[in-house]
């Protein structure tokens, strides 16, 4: 239902919105861009693995786009985004080969460790990265066209929207494929995967590289929109933010990335306007409410409402739609 009805409606509203009103496009461009790394986190969560280091790929994409735009006279956003994706995929492969050997807290912590090393490199290599001041990124051309700021932001809004929709659909289809189902199976029984003749590590590595790709693309879009890439992009708080948004939106469905990203940005912007520096307090309270009353996130709430109204079959979601026993075969074996 979400893919067939909600996505077209959201896309339609998103297409019309900048034409009908003003003041939303900058906010929403960031929502679209930041939903991408969250989508990557949701992908890994299907295998029961959480990364507290995906900001490193976000920063990889951002800095790569920055370097490319600065290196090419006039810059070209298409080349910059392609380079950002390429760099993120390579980084995802290099880090992934190592971290997919580990699970749960070790997986999370190794990701965190790698990202903090990367953060330090960005901070210390001042001559290359600009240090803590960051890398300023001139406005690139779009398909050879140099644009004024308002025109550029208008086009970037639609570019980010289109890329997000493609990625949402792509990840949705991937999760429905045999490989996607095998990824979900990692959460409950890796032993059986081995005895089906498959490598759980390899399956997780593929998902990890895709998640790095998504984070890198998101980072590049944010960087070219804001015109700057800073080491803060790789900082652990940013990684935590992606996980926060994934939980907020709901990890059982790709739409959790979109819903979470929208609500997070909205609360952040609104709370900053009213309570200034204590906006994190508001976010914390919202997360508490979500964890206590809607552990399957905003998308889970949507499903619950739909189920309550009896207007359709509840969509199976790993965390919210179904209510599995929560026990793996290994745990059952231990109990026996």
């Amino acid at each position, binding site marked *: 239902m979400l893919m067939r009805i909600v996505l077209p409606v959201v896309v339609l509203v998103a297409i019309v919105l900048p034409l009908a009103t003003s003041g939303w496009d900058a906010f929403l461009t960031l929502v679209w861009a930041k939903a991408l790394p969250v989508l990557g986190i949701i992908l890994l969560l299907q295998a029961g693995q959480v990364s507290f280091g995906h900001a490193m790929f976000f920063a990889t994409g951002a800095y790569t786009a920055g370097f490319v735009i600065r290196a090419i006279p006039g810059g070209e956003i298409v080349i910059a985004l392609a380079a950002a994706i390429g760099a993120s995929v390579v980084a995802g492969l290099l880090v992934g080969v190592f971290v997919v050997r580990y699970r749960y807290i070790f997986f999370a912590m190794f990701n965190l460790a790698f990202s903090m090393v990367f953060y330090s490199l960005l901070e210390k290599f001042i001559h290359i990265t600009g240090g803590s001041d960051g890398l300023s990124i001139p406005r690139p051309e779009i398909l050879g066209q140099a644009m004024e700021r308002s025109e550029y932001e208008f086009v970037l809004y639609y570019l980010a929207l289109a890329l997000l929709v493609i990625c949402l659909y*792509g990840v949705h*289809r*991937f999760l*429905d*494929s*045999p*490989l*996607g*189902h*095998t990824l*979900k*199976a990692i*959460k*409950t*029984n890796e*032993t*059986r995967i*081995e*005895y*089906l*003749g*498959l*490598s759980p590590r390899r399956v997780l590595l593929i998902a990890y590289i895709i998640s790095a790709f998504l984070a890198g693309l998101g980072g590049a879009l944010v960087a070219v929109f804001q015109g700057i890439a800073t080491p803060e992009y790789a900082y652990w708080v940013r990684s935590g933010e992606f996980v926060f948004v994934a939980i907020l939106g709901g990890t059982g469905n790709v739409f959790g990335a979109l819903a979470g990203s929208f609500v997070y940005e909205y609360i952040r912007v609104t709370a900053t306007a009213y309570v200034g520096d204590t906006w994190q307090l508001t976010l914390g309270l919202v997360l508490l409410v979500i964890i206590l009353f809607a552990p399957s996130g905003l998308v889970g709430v949507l499903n619950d409402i739909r189920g309550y109204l009896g207007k359709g079959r509840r969509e199976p979601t*790993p965390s919210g739609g*179904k209510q*599995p*026993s929560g*026990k*793996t*075969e290994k745990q*059952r*074996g231990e109990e*026996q």
Partner: protein
Amino acid sequence: MTALISAKDLAISFGGVIAAEGVSLDVFEDDHLAIIGPNGAGKTTFLNICTGYLKPSAGSVTFQGRSILGSSPRAITRMGIARAFQIPQLFTEQTVLENMLIAAASQARRFAPFTPLMQIPERKEAEHILELVGCDDVSDRPASELPEGKRKLVDIALALALKPKVLLMDEPTSGVASSEKFDIMDTLIGALREQQVTSVFVEHDMEMVSRYANRVAVWNAGHIQSQGTPEDVLQDPEVVRTVIGV
């Protein structure tokens, strides 16, 4: 007759416990070989060695004449040796059919990223195997909700979906109500015959052994004490005294 699996002079021990010492055992095509013996004798260890989970300290194991020692469980699975477990190993958050289709897709190496699992060409075959083992009525249920008997059968069905040449089963009816045991084994052996799969099963129930095995190996204290047809082996006074305990 050439052996499908041939183990020669296997030795392995865990601490002071000898699980195998100079064990040689062949599994021939179309065999339904039962391995019996007291608890802790080393029966499951044999399955673990044949599937690459354990490596013996001495000896050799070949499958169709090719050494499989040092190969990983997944490499051995791909060669044609599948395994069903004493505690069923299922994907508990997925439905029975999804479990089967993951296995079928793995066998067919069907990993195109955008083909829905439910639409893979192997679906009919997977559903047929579920029907063969009598689990077609639970195909839409999450694996976590199945009763133990069905879980065992689905575990075996997953192994069959891999189209193995040999299926190794560890106590296929343990934990199953006595009233269901023979039905399950009837179904299972029927499915194995239809799929022309050779089987090796570890079993404690002598009635099951005499009814379903065509060969029996008695594993005791790390040695093969006796092997042959069920009629001969189960009436061997030494086997009766040390293993069957009557």
